[in-house]
């Protein structure tokens, strides 16, 4: 069976590496992007099955990226989980309004994150 491909978008290199290592250990194919534009380029080339998306990033933030993807026919079906330190309810609300499928707070709690990923990638 082909491995599910997860795209990790985060401007912090360490976060990207930790997520990549852990998710790979869990048996996923992981690709990473360091910012919004980078992410959009990668998605065009290698369509992922799920996106873990940070919010606070240079150039364009995660909400905008999410909204952009959800408006495109070819990308609107990719599940997007926000993974961010922005914990205020207004941000959570913004996340869902921009089309996000779930919203998980940093710091990463694997016991909470992994079940959510599994929900989208059986």
């Amino acid at each position, binding site marked *: 069976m082909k491995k599910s491909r997860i795209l990790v978008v985060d401007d*912090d290199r*360490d*976060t990207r*590496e*930790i997520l990549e*290592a*852990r998710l790979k*250990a869990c048996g996923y194919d992981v690709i990473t992007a360091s910012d919004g534009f980078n992410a959009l380029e990668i998605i065009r080339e290698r369509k992922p099955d799920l996106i873990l998306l940070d919010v606070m990033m240079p150039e364009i933030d995660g909400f905008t990226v999410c909204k952009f993807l959800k408006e495109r026919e070819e990308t609107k079906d990719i599940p997007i989980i926000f993974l961010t*330190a922005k914990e*205020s*309810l*207004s941000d959570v609300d913004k996340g869902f309004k921009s089309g996000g499928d779930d919203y998980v707070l*940093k*710091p*990463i709690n*694997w016991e909470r994150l992994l079940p959510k990923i599994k929900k989208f990638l059986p």
Partner: protein
Amino acid sequence: MKLPLRIKILILFLLVASLFLLSIFSSSLIKGKISSQIKEHRLSLIKSASKIVEHYILSCQRSLLALSSAKSFRENVEKENKVYVRRSLRRVYRKYKTFSFVSCIKKKGKELKFLSVWPYTYEGIIKDKEFRNFVLKSFKFPRLRISKVMNYRGRNEVLILVPMRKAVLVAGINLKNLSELLLKIRPSKKSKFALLDWKGNYIVGGKGEFEYKIPSGEGFIEKERENIFITSGTIPVFNWNIVLISKYTDIFSPVLALKRLTFFFLILGIAIAIILSIHFSKKITEPIYELMKGARILGSGNLSYRIKLKTGDELEKLADAFNKMAEELKKSYDLLDERVKMATRNLQEAYQEIEEKNRKLEEADKLKSQFLANMSHELRTPLNAIIGFTDLIMSGIYGKVNNKQYEKLERVKINAEHLLNLINDILDLSKIEAGRMELFPERFKVNSLIEEIKSSVEGLVQEKGLELRVNLFDEIEANLDPRKFRQIILNLVSNAIKFTKEGYVEISLKKRDGEFEVAVKDTGIGIKEEDLKHIFDEFRQVDGSTAREFGGTGLGLSISKKLTELMGGRIEVESKYGKGSTFKIIFPIYS
């Protein structure tokens, strides 16, 4: 006029009243005086006129007497020398011109005969009955006589008779001459003298035009309406009356003029009085109106208005009083205004100062909080990386880890997590202090939330060999931020577990009038009394040793207290050192 109002009014009334009285009094006085003077003057006129008449008549008599006593004339009369007698009579007639005729009459038996008469035109008078009677009487009682008025040929005749031996001299008085004489001495052209004999017949000036009964002796007849004034006097020698007849208006023209003048002055006076009274009333009422106007303007609050009155009387004083009052009022208002302004300014300055200080303080505070928040966030990212990588290494992804290494990696992780908790707590505190802690209240069942906490700490409790008691006495539904609420309870429960070595931890929930209370009780080390007041301060774990032994950031209680208060509740603590503590959070119940 700078006179008091009272005096002004008094003067006005006196003026008008005296004008009336004066005019009436003076006119009557002057009239009386003038008329008495006029009367006196007329009486003297009458007297002089009577003297003239008397003289005239006496001179007639004298000339006749002189003739009669002349020897040659007497002899010639006796001789009946008509020529001589006529010549003599003619001489007398021509010489004196006071006679209408002169005659010498003789009595022949019962017949009277002219010895001579001059002028001849009077020859016929001898046949006049009255004439004859007069002359005949004289022959019986010879003496000097003057006849009453007789009418001969339409003319008045008054006769003078002088007796002689067997003859009489009879002459008619030249009344025309006398009349002319009297005309000459009349006081005005509109008056004339009249002579009346003792029977009241007119000798001169009659002609029947006056029908008034002339009083004998001195007297006056006033017929103002018929424009007649008559003054009468007597000529005692002949028992004649003499009267001065005048037009009333003529004599009394000065009185009438005075009357007219008085009337004129009266009218003038009244007119002046009316004008003056109008003027005065205007003068009096104008300032009153001015006062009224001024009082109204002042009353409406325009205190800079001044009433301008220069009447010099009580009104001016009143106006001055008004002005003074307004000035005083204005002064005090201005003073008050100034004070208020000053006070306001001071207050404003103070406010501004305080605001400025507040703003600066707030700014500083905000900057501090901002800094803390940023720092916390910046610190969290690398810490998360540390924990993440430690986790990864421990999980053996990067190769096998031996026990010793694993142990040390665990210490790294525990310390990193502790640091992370500290940072999280600081972030919470700084958010609360910066006023940026957002609350998202919703309805939830407190019972369920406590149950949930119970299950999440159950493992920890069992691990420490403690008993966990949960007593939910009431069903409570709260309208609070459930995450924050959970954070508070969890903090209290973890503290209780942390500081309790043996015994139990009890969570209870109950209602107390209008509020509900969650109490977390433990049988732990307790808190010394002197430390109780510092228990909620930041970074105050009772002492360093406790911190080392029990871990924790020392910020939990502070955050719990602040969150509780932020959500409208309060936190209470009871404790006995060595026996245990009870923390209670109390919130109002919203229906």
